[in-house]
């Protein structure tokens, strides 16, 4: 008759530990489970191959900063800062696979509840597009996440070309959610727009500052002028 093996706690502990050690040894000895993919995604290996060969890279070879210990995040912080798997993700949402990860009651919120200013863009106001038609379904990847369709390396092909057939990467750099050009904050985020806008406003205001009083005075002077017109008096 079968009798259950009753072991002491010490015996059980040691048997589990030995099993785990065997498992680790087994895993190390096994071949890489996705070697083919590894060839495609191993940044350092491909970098070295190209570096030794041509030194020129295609766009698809410009990889994410996944294995790079230091990254720079434009607009968030100047220069370089240490990248940690958790810290940066909490602070910056531009590189997440799910940019809305961890937001409470997210599924009950509408986009414009948080993205108040982003709602006012020509595609939404005039083109009748909704956010998801460009940003995609859940999970909405961060704009700079390597696999996001919104990533500048493929935005033109995956997003813009849906309507604007033949859109190039340059074309896709059009700023959909452009800031208000009159705002002082635009000087930091989009300086060319800010300065050009105010130059044009100054041109218009300058023209009217000269010609409106000029025209009004002229009209008034002629109105009050004596009816008799004399030679030499304009």
């Amino acid at each position, binding site marked *: 008759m079968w009798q259950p093996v009753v072991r002491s706690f010490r015996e059980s502990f040691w048997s589990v530990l030995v099993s785990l050690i065997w498992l680790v040894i087994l895993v190390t000895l096994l071949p890489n489970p996705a070697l083919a993919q590894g060839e495609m995604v191993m940044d350092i290996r491909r970098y070295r191959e190209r570096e030794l060969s041509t030194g020129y890279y295609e766009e698809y070879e410009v990889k994410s900063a996944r294995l790079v210990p230091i990254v720079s995040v434009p607009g968030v912080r100047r220069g370089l800062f240490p990248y940690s798997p958790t810290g940066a993700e909490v602070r910056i949402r531009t590189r997440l696979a799910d940019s809305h990860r961890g937001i409470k009651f997210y599924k009950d919120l509408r986009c414009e509840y948080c993205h108040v200013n982003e709602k*006012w863009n*020509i595609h939404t*106001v*005039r083109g009748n597009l909704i956010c998801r038609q460009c940003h995609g379904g859940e999970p909405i990847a961060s704009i700079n996440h390597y696999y996001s369709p919104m990533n500048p390396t493929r935005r033109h092909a995956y997003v813009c070309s849906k309507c*604007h057939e*033949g*859109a*190039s990467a*340059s*074309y*896709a*750099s*059009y*700023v959909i959610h*452009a800031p208000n*050009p009159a705002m002082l904050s635009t000087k930091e985020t*989009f300086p*060319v*727009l800010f300065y*050009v*806008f105010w130059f*044009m*406003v100054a*041109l*218009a205001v300058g*023209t*009217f500052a000269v*010609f*409106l009083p*000029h*025209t009004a*005075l*002229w*009209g*008034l*002077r*002629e*109105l009050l*002028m004596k009816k008799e*017109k004399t*030679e*030499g*008096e*304009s």
Partner: protein
Amino acid sequence: MSPKGKTRIRRFSPVQRLFHVLLILSFLTQGATGLSRMYIETSWGKGLASVFGGYESCLTIHKYVGIFMICWFLIHGLYLFFKIDWRQFPRSLFGPDSLLPRLEDLGQAIQHVAWMLGIDRLLRLDRWGFLKKLDDFLLRITRLPPLNRVSYLKEFDGLLSVITKPPRFDRWGYWEKFDYWAVFWGIPLLGVTGLIMAFPLVSTRFIPGWGLNVVFWIHRIEAVLAMCHVFIIHFFIAHLRRHSFPMDRAMFEGSVDLAAARHEKPAWIARLEQTGKLQSQLVAEISVGRKALLYVFGYAAVGFGIFLLIGGLVNSTSITW
């Protein structure tokens, strides 16, 4: 004296008038189609757009008419090239019949403003009293010897004599030159930015895509500036001020009343009289029927422009984009 019946003097050739009519039609079309898109959220904008077939067709018309404007602007450039008197070149460019701005225009503008403000009369009445006060002031603050003061006062008196003299305009007043050359900054600016936006896939091969954000605002502000200038300043000067009221027909009829020209452009008429060319430039008045037609066309354009201006101003707070 003018020959019997010929009371008007030729001012614009038929080709120049054709250019102006084309400009009126294309400018108003561009203004209406552009504003109807800008104000599409308002009932005013919707109504305006419906005249042109709706929001989308407004853009189509805007693009084609814009290209048409660029074409005739280039043709006008060619016309100018052939119109230049090359035998007298470059002197012909700076003559009184040329529209090129001269330093004299600046002086006339100052004289004109002085006339508007009544400074000319004021200074003419009390010129010596004014100079005496200026002499006392100079003595008090500088302690200059009398001889130096006199020389300064002479300089100043020379300046005063220029200001107090009413301007004697020749063929083209400074405001007319400004209106003419404003088109030369407006159309290239609107045309280039318009072409960039009309063909974004091509243009973004040469400029970055964010350039479209920038050119949009250049186009919009320049268009608003051009419309406001034409609908307020140009219309008022050419049609509504006392001298031109009810309408300056020169650009439609090609001629102006000789007596009115003698009053507003005395140097032009005097020059023609001196050179004996005046008689050859005189023309007769057109028939009442043709005149009525010109009034209808001119006032339709003015009325439509003012409709766009008032509609735009009233609804300006409702612009969403």
